């Protein structure tokens, strides 16, 4: 503001002759932003508080080809709308929002721009937002995100008044995650899968948008598109299942659930934030509970695993922080949601409109966009985890308690690939094209290297951990292809891998609870002892190795279909990874469940209570596994619900990346949805 004063002075001096009583001054009367109801109209008043006649040249809805305003949002062209305003005069401007088109926007977060001859404010904006006036109608995503945090506060308050019994804390955890799950399912039902960028609001739904720190242009901006709504659903399912699995925790239970629920809030927050600063805050908030959850409730080497996880992730996120600041300072002027002018922006949606590459900036001789891309990518790749940043994962998984392994593999790893899509791909499309081949190579290394490592493991949990490294490689490969099938496959793989590994870790937890060991070599012939358990493990292993008819197959197949036309050699190598994957799964299955039962277990200490027999899964364990198994089977036969959900948002994203390259190579292949629609159902 201070910097602009001399400019304003100079301008007003130069026109002092024309304006004897000072220049015209445009002002918007009333509260910002203007509230409007879908299907209705709203009005705001313009006033001329200056000393000369105010000429208004245009009043228009802010819209552009890259980010169109929702159809049906218009300024009512009253008679005399553009008449000049004499000093002291006021005029009412009406805006209407009558949603139209095939996919009607239920919400509106737009701006009306007014162009006038006010020398200080040639162009001002008035924010226009819809509000349903109900808590869930307006703040659905906030509710999903912060209900678990309310649970944290409840546990803390109970602790202060010394009423925090273990049972009560567990109930709080059940209730809050169940509410989030119910709301997420409701969210998915309400979500309009066909709604895309072309329909307005940058393709986002369930938007919440208000100013958080006006002085630094930070906004509280939440919203979901197809990719994030899928991830929200996954997070809700996994975190609820995680509470069921958490029953095995017996030490410091109130603290455990407080940290667990804080983690859940952080995860939801990452997937729904559309303001980069807010995203970063949630991203970091997740670190603290994770450190304690591994460090306090973990296995023998928990301290090492916890600090390793913490250091790796923090190293990635400080680089992300630098990229965040660079992107902020090179963003173009825009408006905050209430119409205030902002010199720069943290809004990811606005950042997508900037063409950073065309600024041509360099840092140390390297293109700024590429540097930012690499910084961000390292930050996300550590989370994925991508070779060579993956070494924290086996340690963290092995030491973490079962429920935390479930969360870690089920949701946290997906944040890496989600971040790549939401930020690297959407904001820096040119650099994404530049780096796509490297991504593919790293993806293939992940697949092969992870699979070989998994084969060498004696610890069942470590085997599953390395299988995660391998399977997340499919996501990287699919994303790098930038084809519809590849990217759909990648996001579907994120969802499927989330459910499958959650199952696998829960299953490992089941046997560990009984035998107090996970060493593959010590088992054998378990199938005769625990047939139901064996069936579940068999299902999960088959899904993980990509057996047709189970969910893992669909996503892997889509990834290969999508990446083959673009990276044929890489894809062929990656497909050999599937064979290794099948090998280590089947080999482990054989060693643990088939063959002769290891009779030394009969006299084992661990099984004293049950007289040397492995007890079958109990109801609680069944309750945590059955929903996941159902999802795996259903999505194996009928993946369309998830693909439909992802489709439009992902295609918009893909178009953004691909069309950034003006000499775009025409890529073969029809959309993944067509492909599946053509096949037999």
């Amino acid at each position: 503001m201070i910097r602009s004063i001399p400019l304003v002075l100079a301008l007003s001096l130069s026109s002092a002759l024309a304006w004897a009583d000072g220049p015209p001054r445009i002002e918007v009367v009333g509260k910002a932003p203007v509230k409007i109801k879908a299907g209705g109209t709203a009005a705001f008043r313009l006033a001329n508080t200056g000393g000369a006649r105010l000429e208004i040249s245009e009043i228009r809805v802010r819209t552009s080809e890259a980010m169109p305003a929702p159809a049906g949002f218009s300024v009512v062209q009253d008679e005399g709308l553009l008449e000049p305003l004499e000093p002291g005069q006021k005029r009412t401007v009406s805006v209407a929002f009558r949603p139209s088109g095939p996919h009607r926007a239920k919400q509106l977060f737009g701006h009306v721009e007014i162009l006038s001859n006010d020398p200080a404010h040639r162009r001002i904006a008035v924010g226009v937002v819809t509000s349903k006036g109900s808590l869930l109608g307006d703040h659905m995503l906030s509710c999903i995100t912060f209900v678990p945090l309310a649970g944290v506060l409840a546990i803390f308050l109970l602790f202060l008044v010394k009423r925090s019994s273990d049972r009560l804390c567990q109930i709080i955890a059940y209730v809050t995650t169940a509410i989030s799950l119910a709301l997420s399912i409701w969210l998915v039902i309400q979500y309009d899968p066909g709604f895309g960028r072309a329909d307005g609001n940058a393709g986002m739904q369930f938007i919440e948008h208000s100013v958080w720190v006006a002085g630094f242009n930070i906004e509280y901006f939440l919203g979901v598109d197809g990719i994030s709504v899928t991830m929200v659903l996954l997070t809700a399912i996994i975190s609820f299942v995680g509470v069921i699995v958490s029953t095995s925790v017996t030490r410091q239970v109130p603290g455990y659930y407080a940290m667990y629920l804080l983690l859940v809030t952080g995860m939801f927050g990452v997937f729904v934030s559309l303001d980069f600063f807010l995203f970063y805050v949630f991203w970091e908030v997740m670190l603290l509970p994770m450190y304690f959850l591994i460090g306090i409730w973990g296995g023998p080497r928990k301290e090492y695993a916890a600090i390793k996880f913490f250091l790796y992730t923090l190293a990635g996120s400080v680089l992300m922080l630098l990229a965040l600041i660079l992107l902020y300072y090179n963003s173009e002027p825009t408006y905050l949601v209430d119409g205030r002018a902002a010199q720069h922006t943290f809004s990811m949606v606005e950042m997508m409109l900037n063409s950073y590459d065309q600024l041509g900036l360099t840092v140390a001789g390297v293109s700024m966009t590429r540097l930012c891309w690499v910084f961000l990518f390292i930050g996300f790749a550590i989370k994925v985890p991508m070779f060579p940043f993956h070494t924290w994962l086996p340690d963290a998984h092995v030491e973490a308690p079962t429920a935390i392994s479930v969360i870690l593999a089920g949701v946290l790893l997906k944040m890496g690939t989600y971040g790549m899509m939401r930020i690297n791909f959407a904001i820096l499309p040119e650099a994404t094209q530049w780096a796509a081949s490297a991504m593919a190579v790293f993806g293939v290394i992940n697949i092969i290297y992870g699979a070989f490592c998994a084969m060498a493991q004696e610890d069942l949990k470590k085997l599953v951990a390395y299988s995660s490294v391998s399977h997340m490689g499919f996501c990287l490969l699919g994303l790098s292809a930038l084809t519809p099938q590849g990217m759909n496959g990648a996001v579907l793989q994120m969802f499927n891998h989330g459910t499958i590994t959650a199952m696998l870790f829960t299953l490992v937890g089941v046997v560990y609870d009984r035998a107090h060991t996970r060493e593959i070599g010590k088992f054998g012939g378990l199938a005769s002892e625990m047939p139901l358990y064996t069936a579940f493990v068999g299902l999960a292993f088959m899904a993980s190795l990509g057996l047709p008819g189970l969910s893992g197959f669909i996503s892997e197949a889509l990834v290969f279909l999508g990446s083959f036309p673009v990276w044929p050699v890489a894809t062929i190598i990656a497909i050999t990874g599937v064979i290794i994957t099948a090998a280590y799964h089947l080999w482990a299955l054989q060693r643990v469940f088939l063959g002769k039962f290891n009779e030394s277990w009969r006299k084992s200490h661990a099984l004293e209570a049950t007289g040397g027999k492995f007890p079958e899964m109990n109801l609680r364990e069944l309750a945590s596994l059955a929903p996941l198994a159902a999802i795996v089977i259903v999505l194996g036969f009928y993946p369309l619900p998830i693909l439909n959900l992802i489709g439009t948002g992902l295609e918009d994203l893909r178009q953004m990346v691909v069309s950034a390259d003006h000499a775009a190579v025409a890529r073969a292949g029809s959309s993944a949805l067509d492909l599946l629609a053509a096949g037999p159902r």
Partner: protein
Amino acid sequence: MPAQSVADLRFIYPELVLAGAIFAILFFDLAGRGDRSRGCATIALAGLVGAGVLAARDFLLCRGAHPAIEPHAIFSGLLAFDPFAAGMKVFFAMACALIVVFSIPTEEAGGGSAKGRGAGEFYGLFLCIVLGLYLMAGARNLLMLYLSLELVSVISFVMAGFRTEDHKSGEAALKYVIFGGASSGVMLYGMSWLFGATGSLDLGEIAAALATTDSKAAVFVGVLGVLAGFGYKISAVPFHMWAPDVYEGAPTAITAFLSVGPKAAGFAMMLRFFTQALGANAEVVPLDLPWPLVGGILAAVTMTVGNLTALGQNNVKRMLAYSSVAHAGYILMGFSVFDDLGMRSMLFYITVYCFMNLGAFLVVMAVAERTGSERIEAFRGLGRRAPLLAAAMAIFLFSLTGLPPMAGFIGKFYLFVALLEKGGTGYALLAVIGALNSVVALFYYARVLKAMYLRNAAEPEAEGPVPVRPLYGATLAALVVPTVVLGLYWMPVFALVGESLNFAR
């Protein structure tokens, strides 16, 4: 001139109140009977609150409250009356009042000893340092700069050696004296070069003379010498060697004070010196001297050395000493930018740092009071023995690391913003070094976290709950709340900091 000086007295009410409080403590200590520590502390607290309120009034006055007073030089140019000095004074009053509250019944303040001896000296000397800090904040003449700095240093030597029966305390004091003497010698020498090159001691006149002088080398050498003095006060590498020993040896309340008060005052002086005498924040730096480079190297070396040495420390106070060296390095990143945003982010970081660092020291004190040890082992199992104390420590440590949603993150964020907004390879490199340093810092802060939460107490008998005095509880709350709130809503404070960056010409 004397008449003018007498009239100028009305601009130093805060200092006068402090001086009055010092005398009041001395008389009370002489005349009173029995345990006088609480009485002395109350007087000190009253003096600090009074000085703080008056300084806040000055701040409002120079900001244009009625009747507005233009920022100007007072006492023939020796001191400045401006928002910057007033703002720093408010800050010092706040921080020092907290430290007085910390120190109330501890051994070194006399509360625990038989006849309550030493309380008068302790609080009297403490207020003398505060007076020195106030003068440092206002000094705008090389002589005044030196005198106020020495006032703070000399009394700090005494305070560091306050536990006369403790060898470590004595050793700390002696080291402090030697390093202090050496660096103030270098500083004086640098000042003499500056005086030789410009012919004046007044910062404003030096600036005017620099515009015409061509003795670039002399000015450069002179300023480097002066920087040694500042570097000693802010404990920047290579003038940091005293810090660990002094921090470990001094009474914890004094350590907490030394890590915040003189450091902030050193930075305040540095800001005033570089903006007023050298015009380093101007678009065109006079003589084209490479201050950004000097500041950048100093920052990079200071934070890296501070963090790497902190890694191996087992005494928490010593570890926090090295961490405070590292934090000086972070703040120096803002110095290397030296534009408006850079200075603002420095001041904001100092404010935030005050809360989180004092908080960490307060927890160390509370733990040491119960367990008699300041080693990391004493923190074992604290998460169960004193859950709230441990939670507060965790918040302070996370904030010191710079993790959101704590205030330390916002502070660091603005420092990075200042660097990256300025642009250029050097600044980007410095930002990367700073970012990686936060990761290193996490490692040693996490050692305390690990002891608190992941370990059980070393001996079974130490496993019992650790009671915390209500006074500590209240002070802790007063420090935790801003540490968290400033991480979520910091704009008003940031704006205030911006307004205080207004120097008397």
